[in-house]
């Protein structure tokens, strides 16, 4: 299975990257370890968005809801129930998958922009619940001091946990993108009408895509809780969803690891520019403009295109 998808060279690169990431906490300060964990988590989230956005062609405008929902689900299970932490960690992403399915049941009847707008509305309802329901979700204060299992409490252990989970999730998503399901999903992106004509039940595949993307967003949500130790309604506010879309576009949304790179760029920018000015979005705006004019395929898409001119030509052909 693995051998069919990864060349020896690619495996080697992956091993080196993992080794560097694993060694990083030995050399870096706590702040940088925290930052890297945040990048990993955000990157996983953006990649899960890209499953449906870049590979499925669905206008997933409010992906953050599934992230926040997973984070809240884990938090509430940890704080309000006596459930074993391991079970809560497994169950929380499933909650996000179910939410993806439920919202999807309503939204996949529509296409393109209408799908996206309806998703924003329904997602905002979920956000409003978290924002106002003080007795249950802590309202706009959120919930802090979440009892993270001791094993994951230290910042380095949270980092390693994130690294392992993110790597495993990326591997799974990569398998899915290259599976028959992924192939059909890309077919639906390119041409839903033709897919129906060759016997594909488009709606069922889109629903499954929503559930899968929701699941991995939920995984990212649980990691965020682990790294941060708190949740707040901003996790499912629509502006975060917009930022995630920007990450996908910035990194390259037809390349599997594009969103990961996009997330790294945006999170780093926000952190360091944010030190000097609260108007860091100004910088983001400029970056976006440059991106649209000079790198429409995203940074990674552009880099890969340089490496393989024929592929770039193909990607340029809409």
């Amino acid at each position, binding site marked *: 299975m693995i051998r069919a998808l990864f060349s020896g060279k690619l495996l080697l690169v992956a091993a080196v990257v993992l080794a560097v990431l694993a060694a990083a906490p030995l050399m870096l300060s706590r702040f940088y370890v925290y930052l890297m964990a945040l990048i990993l988590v955000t990157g996983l989230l953006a990649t899960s968005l890209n499953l449906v956005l870049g590979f499925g062609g669905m206008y997933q405008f409010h992906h953050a809801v599934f992230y926040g929902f997973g984070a809240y689900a884990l938090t509430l299970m940890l704080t309000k129930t006596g459930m074993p932490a391991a079970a809560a960690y497994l169950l929380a992403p499933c909650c996000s998958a179910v939410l993806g399915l439920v919202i999807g049941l309503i939204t996949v009847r529509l296409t393109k922009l209408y799908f996206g707008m309806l998703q924003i509305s329904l997602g905002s309802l979920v956000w409003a619940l978290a924002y106002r329901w003080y007795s249950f979700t802590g309202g706009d204060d959120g919930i802090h001091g979440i009892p993270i299992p001791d094993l994951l409490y230290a910042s380095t252990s949270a980092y390693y946990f994130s690294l392992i989970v993110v790597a495993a999730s990326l591997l799974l998503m990569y398998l899915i993108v290259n599976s028959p399901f992924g192939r059909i999903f890309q077919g639906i992106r390119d041409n839903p009408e033709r897919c129906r*004509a060759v016997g594909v*039940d488009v709606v069922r595949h889109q629903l499954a895509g929503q559930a899968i993307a929701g699941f991995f967003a939920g995984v990212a949500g649980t990691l965020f809780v682990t790294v941060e130790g708190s949740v707040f309604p901003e996790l499912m506010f629509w502006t975060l969803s917009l930022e995630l879309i920007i990450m996908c576009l910035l990194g390259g949304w037809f390349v599997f690891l594009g969103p990961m790179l996009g997330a790294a760029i945006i999170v780093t920018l926000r952190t360091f520019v944010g030190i000097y000015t609260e108007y860091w979005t100004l910088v983001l705006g400029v970056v976006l403009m440059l991106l649209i004019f000079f790198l429409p395929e995203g940074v990674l898409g552009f880099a890969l295109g340089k490496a393989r001119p024929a592929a770039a030509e193909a990607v340029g052909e809409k």
Partner: protein
Amino acid sequence: MLRVEALRKSFEGFVAVNGARLAVDEGEVVAVIGPNGAGKTTLFHLITGQLPPDSGSIRFRETEIAGVAPHKICRMGVARSYQVVNIFSRLSVFDNVQVAVLARRGKTFNLLRPARTMAVSETRQILKSVGLGDKADRVCGLLSHGDQKVLEIAIALGSRPELLILDEPTAGMSPEETAQTLRLMKRLVAEFGLTILFCEHDMGMVFSIANRIMVMQQGQTIAEDAPEAVRSNPRVQEAYLGETAPC
């Protein structure tokens, strides 16, 4: 095999198909001809489920399929190609056909097995039989128009249909490409035993391959007969072919 009766479809007052009838028997090659706007493409959309008819009956092997969802009709054994090239433009030629093969085999919810190891020989076989074998790895958006039209047919073959519906298979092709496509269609009938229903403006092609011809005008069937009889049918000559007989 296919029986269409009293089929009607209108769009906001405009009647595109108005009581059309059509019969296709197993092993036949049936052509639908008629001037632009006669309702040929709409008729094909109705048969393959892309559009629901307002009224009338479409029976495929004794099953009523009027208004049934397109993916279900496809699974019954009816596949089609499109007049305007309608393919998966970002996928490779191989992937385009493989999507159809995977869909037919019902493997589309397999999440973890690499797709590139599945349905490979069948997909290559189809590409080879239509003459696209050496272009399998090209991104199909970059193919010539003629090759894209052939790919249209290849995708339809991936569904392994019993009835193949081709909407103007040679539109926009060069004379050589048209001749090749004609040979391909003849082979599909002879070697694979396919039944073909197609529409086409190239009369030379229609008369050289069709067993029977159905003539449409303003959404109605005005003739349905053997080529010779259609050629000499005064109503057809008047309505569609003008003063001179076709060919």
